[in-house]
């Protein structure tokens, strides 16, 4: 196993990259979705609600399957993605995983933020409207900053679930951690237990890091 440490690191490298870019994208998209869902425009509210209930209730694997097999038929494909950084190749498999994970996780981010928005007293938004802030200002200056504080724990849960969900990409041709592990256990079947243990520790470490960051934010915002 020790001889294959570089493979292990490379696998987790893909996992980590995929996690980071998808986390940013799903946080952005989730924020847009929650603004739609709590906003004053009925059509956007409906679109947001439908998006969340459809995507959230679809198994992630199905979303991957859609982007791998159905979307190309409809003319949506990511074959044009060809980025090579160091020893890493970011191609269609990576881009597909990124899109599927981000679209999926955005729903959970949206709902985590929405629970936070609901925790912000009505009077906060009213006071913000009363000084003449338009809807965008009410959200970005007053409601969302407080909602984010209240949603740190559920947001962390959503991101941790996504971190583990990156493993689905392993089934769809991305050589991230899980796929690497499968490869290694096939090649060194007598060391299976050890290999499993190494990868389990890798995932646990990554999840712990996300939890610690979330705890840090919770502490920092407790007083204010």
């Amino acid at each position, binding site marked *: 196993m020790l001889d294959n440490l570089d493979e292990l690191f490379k696998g987790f490298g893909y996992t980590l990259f995929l996690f980071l870019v998808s986390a940013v994208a799903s946080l952005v998209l989730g924020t847009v979705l929650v603004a739609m869902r709590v906003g*004053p425009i009925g059509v956007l509210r409906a679109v947001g609600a439908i998006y969340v209930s459809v995507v959230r209730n679809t198994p992630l694997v199905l979303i991957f399957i859609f982007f791998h097999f159905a979307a190309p038929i409809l003319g949506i494909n990511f074959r044009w993605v060809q980025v090579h950084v160091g020893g890493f190749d970011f191609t269609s498999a990576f881009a597909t995983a990124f899109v599927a994970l981000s679209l999926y996780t955005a729903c959970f981010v949206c709902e985590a933020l929405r629970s936070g928005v609901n925790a912000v*007293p009505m*009077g*906060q938004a*009213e*006071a*913000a*409207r*009363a*000084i*003449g*802030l*338009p809807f965008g*200002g009410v959200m970005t*200056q*007053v409601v969302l*900053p*407080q909602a984010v*504080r209240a949603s740190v724990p559920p947001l962390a849960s959503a991101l941790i679930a996504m971190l583990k969900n990156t493993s689905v990409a392993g089934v769809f041709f991305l050589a991230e951690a899980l796929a690497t592990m499968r490869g290694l256990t096939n090649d060194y079947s007598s060391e299976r237990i050890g290999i499993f243990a190494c990868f389990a520790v890798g995932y646990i470490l990554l999840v712990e890091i996300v939890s610690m960051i979330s705890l840090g934010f919770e502490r920092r915002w407790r*007083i*204010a």
Partner: protein
Amino acid sequence: MTVTDDVPVDNTARRSGDPLVELVDVQKWYGGLHVLQDINLTVGRGEVVVVIGPSGSGKSTLCRTINRLEPIDSGQILVDGAALPQEGKALARHRADVGMVFQSFNLFAHKTILENVTLGPIKVRKQSKAQAEDRARDLLDRVGVAHQADKYPAQLSGGQQQRVAIARALAMEPKVMLFDEPTSALDPEMIKEVLDVMVDLAERGMTMIVVTHEMGFARTAANRVVFMADGRILETADPHTFFTNPQSDRAKDFLGKILKH
């Protein structure tokens, strides 16, 4: 000048008489409940109007319709000659001109006292940060909480928070200020410090619509008292006349109840 002196403010001179806020035949329903019925009210520039009445009579709703936190079903509301815009940017601009002070203060919990006061001037009035902070410090000084500028709202007493809320509204340089029971959530010893700020504001000529049961304030600072019951304005009179010689039975009954305590 404090509210306990019970000497009326002589502000008849500064009342120019031209109407600043006009409500014409305003009707509003909450489902089957007719909360505002045939409301006609004109408030002149520089005038201080106190709205009183039993719980559930529609006082808060009346206040909130004036900056359209609540839409109305029919009738018209004009502020400085212009009808209230329906939605969007124009409405936001209108709200900037109408200051509002809430019973529960509603200071922005995640912002410091100073940031609470500068947010509107910076984001809505597009003032520079330095300019907004200068003015905010002056206003905080005026309401007596200058030394709390860097604290968060939760670290202040109710009376201090409400005075900050008044400063926050004043920072927008509003044409009119609405107060919805600004002292009802306060401990008795803090009521006076807030009322003193409001009396000072009245003396400086601010147009004010104040929902309150503080008779001292009404007698001292108000030009007119409006009595509401069941969604209607039943009586309008100067404070002295209203408190000594109410016309309607509802008002007599109501005054009997609150003056007994």
